[in-house]
């Protein structure tokens, strides 16, 4: 029997339920670095650089640049450092900050996020800085709110301002040149939003990225993103222009992913002999807080190659730049509504 069936091409489905907006509707949200062009990233880094130099030379008295802009720091997961960095960034530009902390386990996940969204929407804040344990949470919030959303870490997905501050730190260390440079990222890649943001940014800028870590902590098919996976930390670091050590969570042992901290330190720790494998001018990064003696040796953390404190300084500058850009867009939206 021959029945010809008319060809039917699936139309692009209407947005129902939850479909995330693109990584950044460029001026409106910062959800991740995936999809950014090198030029866009450099532009943000330049902006951050301006703030940093101004604070270095003219002091840190708050400007009035973001006067009247309201920023809500919504942290559903503890992060003293990131939150402090964002709050300082807002303060130095004269924005008004409100905090919304729903600490750890006291808030059950799903409903509370929806309820919180509605509360935030009713307050009418301009920007929401969101930290949440669910991957995609920032995209989810961005879809539901008028406000601009800055992802301050969503599950195992991305932490784009961390990625930007790493890039700013590397740009200083690498004399402004990303092409031909290679960063080794070592440790728990699978659970690291820091690694994901950094690698997307570096690849967009023309650098190479080599990953190394226990195979239980290496995500599936990650090479397809354009990175190399080395077999050992030595292979990854040899000839590299820098290394980023990732924080190791103790619960990886309990969940059967690793035998012990000492085994980890022995096989994957960033130690002086391993640092010596890199290029002479290579630098060491760590997103903090550090487990000294586990993923990084104390001599390395405090040594001459370490740029860990520079990362912290750059964090405030980068977050100021991002707040400034997105606030501009938020103001324009508000003006259009009036």
């Amino acid at each position, binding site marked *: *029997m*021959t*029945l*010809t*069936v*008319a*060809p*039917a*091409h*699936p*139309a*692009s*489905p*209407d947005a*129902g*339920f*939850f*479909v*995330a907006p693109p990584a950044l509707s460029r001026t409106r949200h910062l959800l991740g670095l*995936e999809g950014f062009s090198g030029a866009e990233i450099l532009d943000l880094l330049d902006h951050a650089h301006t703030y940093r130099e101004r604070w270095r030379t003219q002091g840190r008295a708050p400007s009035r640049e973001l006067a009247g802009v309201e920023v809500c720091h919504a942290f559903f997961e503890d992060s003293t450092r990131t939150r402090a960095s964002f709050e300082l960034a807002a303060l130095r530009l004269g924005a008004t900050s409100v905090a919304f902390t729903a600490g750890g386990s006291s808030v059950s*996940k*799903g409903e509370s*996020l*929806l309820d919180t969204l509605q509360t935030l929407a009713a307050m009418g804040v301009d920007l929401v800085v969101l930290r*949440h344990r*669910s*991957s*995609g*949470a920032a*995209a*989810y919030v961005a879809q539901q709110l008028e406000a601009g959303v800055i992802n301050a870490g*969503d*599950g*195992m*997905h*991305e932490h784009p301002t961390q990625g930007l501050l790493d890039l700013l730190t590397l740009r200083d260390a690498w004399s402004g040149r990303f092409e031909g440079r290679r960063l080794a990222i070592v440790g728990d890649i699978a659970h690291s*939003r820091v690694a*994901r943001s950094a690698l997307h940014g570096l690849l967009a800028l023309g650098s190479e990225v080599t990953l190394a870590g226990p195979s239980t902590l290496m*995500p*599936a*098919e*990650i090479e*397809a*993103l354009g990175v190399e996976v080395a077999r050992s930390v030595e292979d990854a670091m040899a000839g590299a222009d820098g290394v980023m050590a990732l924080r190791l969570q103790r619960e990886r042992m309990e969940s059967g992913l690793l035998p012990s901290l000492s085994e980890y330190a022995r096989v994957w720790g960033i130690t002086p002999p391993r640092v010596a494998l890199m290029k002479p001018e290579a630098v060491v990064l760590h997103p903090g807080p550090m487990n000294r003696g586990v993923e990084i040796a104390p001599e390395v953390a405090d040594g001459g190659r370490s740029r860990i404190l520079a990362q912290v300084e750059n964090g405030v500058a980068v977050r100021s730049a991002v707040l400034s850009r997105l606030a501009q867009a938020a103001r324009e939206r508000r003006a259009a509504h009036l």
Partner: protein
Amino acid sequence: MSDSSARGAANAVTLIRDARHWQTGERIERAFANGQVLERAPAAPDRVIEAGGAILAPGLVDLHVHLREPGQTAKETIESGARAAAAGGFTSVACMPNTKPVLDSVAWIEWVRHRAEKALCRVLPIAAVTVGQEGAQLTEFVALERAGAVALSDDGRPIMNAGLMRHALEYAKQTRLPIVVHEEDLTLRGDGAMNEGLTATRLGIRGIPAAAESVMVRRDVELAELTQGRVHFAHLSCKASFDALRDGKARGLRVSGETCPHYWMLTDEAVADYDTRAKMNPPLRSDLDREATVEAIADGTIDCFVTDHAPHTEDEKRQPFDQAPFGIVGLETALALTIAGLVRPGHLSLSRALELWTEAPRRVFGLPEVSIEPGSPADLVLFDPELEWTVDTSRFASRGRNTPFDGWRLSGRVLATFCGGQQTFALEGAPAEARA
């Protein structure tokens, strides 16, 4: 249906004219009355339906749906689920027991059958394998079979304890009931929310490896050999599972398997923007697995199709990806997705595709045969394989709207469904209704 008097009188004769036979393609007419297909049409039927060349086939059968009743009527009810089934051309559906409470007793099986008496399709309850689906104590298989259960399953959950699975397979031999297994090694699944692979890596979603399914299929093929029991593998989704099933069949074991339209239509890339409508369990897999699904269907490894119709409320699905429930509705898109994914690309003839939705599932569960020939119950579907339509979940009869196919343009549409001679669905504006 416009003519209510025709529906009212059970002995009234309905004549379907100018239809095409689902297997031979020849022009046919069929009359039915008293719920049965008649030997020949009387000179003056009470009602005439001009089919206009539409295909007449036995009513579709879905061995795997979740009707959510008792307990979760915001998601679906037996009534709304059966109406969705009728709209999809189904005349029989087997409903899974993972309701609240679980269908693990004679009383609940009888309750479902009673609730389903007025439903728009035949609802065949599947009973739980273990009390409360807790994986500890077997339910009363013999009594459940007598009460009308058509199979046993702890679907929604695997039977993790291999020893218990062995006993279930052995004890089920006291009945004719197959054990339907949801294969998922929970220790391999962990907190996974989608298929393990590049998309999960990119999105930072914890992955579920395909092996979480296939190692259990392998295990239960071995247990089917040990016990000579009857195993039916639910919603298979990956190459390694099909290979294991193929192997079991080659060894002459009493094993069978089913798959669902989403596994031949989509891959895990459908999740790319954290679209919770594409979150299901087993998860959408790689393109290799998708191709293997088509191959397993084409070579007969797969015994029948099911939808795994799993309705959820919009609020539940409107959550961050890792928190949203697994599941997709399927009754109202099944036939069109079969045409789009299997018939149109030339993997299956339309008649073979229909067989996998009609005769094949009846064989798998040992249900009475239904045909479009005289003497058969008038469980019939009339559909136009070329009629184009756009999936619009707002018009679904199901309470569930959770499907990634919303907005898709598909061809193949059910015009009318008859269950036991009663018209249970008529497409608005279709010839079947307009001329009735």
